[in-house]
């Protein structure tokens, strides 16, 4: 007697069985038992115990992300000073006397940011040993800078144009956070005599 193959049973489960297989399953207890066993096997697979990883991999993910953000921040700092970016950003600032003030202020604060960026290069945390507390403080500030950079990147989006004053404020926040980061690094370097 011809019985269903495993392909027939899997096809039946997917509602893709041939007419012969469907008819055969109605009359053959052995094949129906085989189909039931297939369903039970799948149910048992779904019920396999949940396993948990032995090690926490989040610190490795987080550290990689932070290192990438630092690199992005440096690229962003360099990019923001480029002439093309300057023109693009100035276009977002309203014309008129207030706009001119914003533009000048924006250039000043961006220059400040670039200077701090260059200074921070000297304190690359990837290459220095830091205490846990200092590392946490520096990481929090770097996260803050990354968040500001995220907001600044949105300036290029047509749906979220910032006004000049708001743009200056955002860049000023970036400079403030970088100054704090600089203080952390300078203090640590002085402490360990580097």
């Amino acid at each position, binding site marked *: *007697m*011809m*019985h*269903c*193959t*495993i*392909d*027939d049973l*899997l096809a039946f489960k997917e509602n893709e069985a041939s007419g012969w297989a469907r008819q055969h399953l109605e009359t053959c*207890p*052995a*094949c129906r*038992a*085989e189909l039931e*066993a*297939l369903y*039970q*096997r*799948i*149910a*048992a*697979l*779904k*019920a*396999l*115990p*949940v*396993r*948990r*990883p*032995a*090690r926490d*991999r*989040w610190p*490795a*993910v*987080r550290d*990689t*992300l932070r290192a*990438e953000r630092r690199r992005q921040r440096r690229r962003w700092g360099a990019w923001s000073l480029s002439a093309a970016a300057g023109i693009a950003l100035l276009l977002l600032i309203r014309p008129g006397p207030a706009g001119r003030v914003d533009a000048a202020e924006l250039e000043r604060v961006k220059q400040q940011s670039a200077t701090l960026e260059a200074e921070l290069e000297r304190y690359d945390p990837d290459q220095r040993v830091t205490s846990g507390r200092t590392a946490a403080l520096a990481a929090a500030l770097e*996260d803050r800078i*990354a*968040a500001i950079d*995220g907001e600044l990147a949105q300036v290029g989006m047509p749906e979220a144009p910032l006004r000049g004053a708001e743009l200056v404020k955002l860049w000023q926040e970036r400079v403030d956070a970088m100054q704090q980061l600089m203080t952390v690094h300078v203090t640590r370097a002085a402490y360990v005599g580097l």
Partner: protein
Amino acid sequence: MTISLAVPDILVARARAGDLEALEALYRAFETPVYNVALRMLRTPEDAEDVLQETFLEVVRSIKQYRGEGHLWGWIKRIAASKALMRIRRNQVRATEEFDEETVGAHVGHADGAPGHEGPGAVAGAPARIDLERAFERLSETSRSVVWLHDVEGYTHEEIAELMGKTVSFSKSQLARAHARLRRMLDAEGAAP
């Protein structure tokens, strides 16, 4: 393992804005399900942990691209499956799978000589859980991946074929061969009478 993980929209929004605490919260929410998908597809817990790490690196890098279409778990799971399959392709260099697959037949012999199962009385009842897990672990990584993605995670053969860069018929034949082998191993272990 069927998982329906609901994550607050506000948490996803914060994660998309780059908030590290929100990203860690997402990691904590999906760490175990991602690890389990990887573990079931791969041979070792170490490989599964590596895939967990690779998956979340991808998640934190590209969460801004997640627009909220479909469930977040579906999006993360697809990344995890893709990373696990990439690792399987790397592992295949070891060429152990070929030997594994050669020992597996697509059909279980019939008592009466026909292809398919072994006739009346050959199968009854659910296999014991531990035996099934051990038998499942003996399948090749490719077979395990197809079985897990299809039968447990609910992927279609079309989706599996796309993820694997193979054809739909490859996915279907892998599934059939895996089930035939599972059944045979369970019979041999006496899990089914």
